[in-house]
């Protein structure tokens, strides 16, 4: 393809960014991970990571990140789907994003109030006869707030991939006698996997390193790798161990990228570039 011939000068800023703000910090993190508290070279940090505490933490991080991503998809997909059918869809889409511009700590405090024993959520449960429940500091509230934070990151890419879906395809499927569910399963969903994949990357990966709400909303009953890194850097000031955990997080991310990576598919970018 002609467009790629010659020097892609427009890529310079991007690669410069990778070199300065990605490679350099990683190099720094990798370097720190080989030092102990008193600045001696050591492999102990890596050994420590394979103790039960950190392995358990890794498992629970993955488990919660998985749940958060799953619920995000379950909620985001129908939202995005129906949004594309509204009259002022671009406006509604913007209205999905606006709440995320209000400070997160403030919103978290609001959730503490809303989910409180005497907060609106429990008042509602009381009125409908269920009675007051302990909502805060449960897995439910943790996943709820996490999904709340991440949902725009899931809705946007799915919306975009649904939006440009050719309606003729859907009509054709219907005309051929497919039920709405079959149309969705066989036509719509396969054509939007790109958007869903983007959404997963934008949710699952950061969810692995979630920290603040593990304390505020889950009361430290959920401990993730992100929390541990935070603690190691800021409280214990053991940058070595903190960096080691980060190295593993980055490794996990690479593995996820390989697993969800764009496969060589027929009509994809690569095939026809020559």
């Amino acid at each position, binding site marked *: 393809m002609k467009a790629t011939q010659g020097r892609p000068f427009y890529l310079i800023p991007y690669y410069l960014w990778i070199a300065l703000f990605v490679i350099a910090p990683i190099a720094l993190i990798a370097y720190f991970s080989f030092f102990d*508290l008193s600045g001696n070279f050591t492999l102990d940090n890596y050994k420590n990571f394979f103790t039960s*505490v950190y392995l358990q933490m890794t498992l629970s991080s993955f488990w919660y990140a998985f749940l958060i991503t799953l619920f995000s998809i379950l909620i985001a997909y129908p939202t995005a789907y129906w949004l594309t059918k509204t009259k002022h869809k671009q406006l509604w889409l913007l209205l999905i994003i606006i709440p995320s511009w209000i400070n997160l700590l403030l919103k978290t405090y609001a959730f503490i109030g809303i989910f409180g024993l005497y907060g609106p959520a429990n008042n509602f449960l009381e009125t409908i006869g269920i009675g007051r429940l302990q909502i805060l500091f449960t897995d439910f509230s943790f996943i709820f707030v996490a999904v709340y934070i991440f949902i725009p990151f899931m809705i946007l890419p799915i919306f975009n991939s649904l939006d440009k879906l050719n309606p003729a395809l859907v009509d054709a499927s219907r005309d051929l006698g497919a039920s709405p569910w079959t149309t969705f399963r066989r036509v719509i969903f396969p054509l939007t996997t790109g958007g869903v994949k983007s959404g997963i990357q934008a949710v699952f990966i950061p969810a692995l390193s979630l920290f603040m709400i593990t304390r505020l909303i889950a009361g430290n009953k959920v401990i993730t790798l992100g929390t541990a890194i935070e603690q190691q850097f800021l409280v*214990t000031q053991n940058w070595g161990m903190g960096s080691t955990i980060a190295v593993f997080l980055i490794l996990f991310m690479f593995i996820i990228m390989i697993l969800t990576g764009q496969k060589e598919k027929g009509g994809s970018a690569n095939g026809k570039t020559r």
Partner: protein
Amino acid sequence: MKELIRAAIVLIAVSALLMYGVSFLERSTAKSGSGSITVYNWGEYIDPELIAQFEEEHNIRVIYETFDSNEAMMTKIEQGGTSYDIAVPSEYAIEKMKENDLLLPIDHELIPNLQNIDPYFLDLPFDPGNEYSIPYFWGTVGIAFNPTLLEGQTFESWDDLWNHTLEQEVILVDSAREVIGMGLNSFGYSLNSTDPAELREATDKLKEIGPNVKAIIGDEVVEMMRNEEAAVALTWSGHAADMMWINEDIDYIIPEEGSNLWFDNMIIPSTSTNVEGAHAFINFMLDADVAAQNADYVGYATPNAAAVELMDPEVVSDERFYPSEEIRDRLEVYENLGLEMLGVYNELFLEFKMDMQ
């Protein structure tokens, strides 16, 4: 494409407008006077009126920056790149900063108001002779509780937190020294213990409190207690005062076995570029009227004896927040145990937290 370019132009124009606004506001508030100082403090930890008063009186512009943890603050000062003239760390941080040469000595000649400080709070182990630090606020660690939610149950000792009636009622603070310290204190051991056997004993006992623990959180505890979300909390006196300010049912005690005595202190970081202005600021904050007004605003206990004289007698005679010397003698100040030991405390604390899941 046109739409993209138009959007970009609008954004740049709006930003330019905002920049103009900032420079306009900065010019209109800037004092014409000699130089400026940068104060690095916790958010909402000073009465802003006093800053204006200081700027007025001394003709020095105050740039106010905020931090949210001692450790983060130290990292910034250590790394440089920006200059701070005053910072307000907790006492354990001061020892660490001293070790790392991050502090400038304070010239007592320039701080005549130092005489206002209660001598009890001077010359403490973390900074003998107050060579580097001047106390700003002080307080204790204790138990805040709401008797109306507990059928009148009261607290005297740390052991009361282990009581079986408190299932899922206790909130702990997310800080290793405080929680492990509670375990140590309950055996009568020192808060600064480095004896592995004592620490093990304390941690083992802490594991038994598990069923009572509702959550381990930070500053949000104030919100929770006010909302009657939980009945009991291990917390700092400053937070307890904040709780009571809204919810009058709440009470606070310092357990009889002893507890922690903490200080926030003004220091001059080694990055200071206006040492003279920094001294002027410290001296200003120690003025009796100023300190009284500040204590009134922040709601923490002031070490300034002259200011205490000026304050509402009802406030300063409250033994919960201005404990008598007799009670204070049971309290211990944290010593800097070194990073290795701090690591041990944190590992034990992490173990405790993981054990609760």
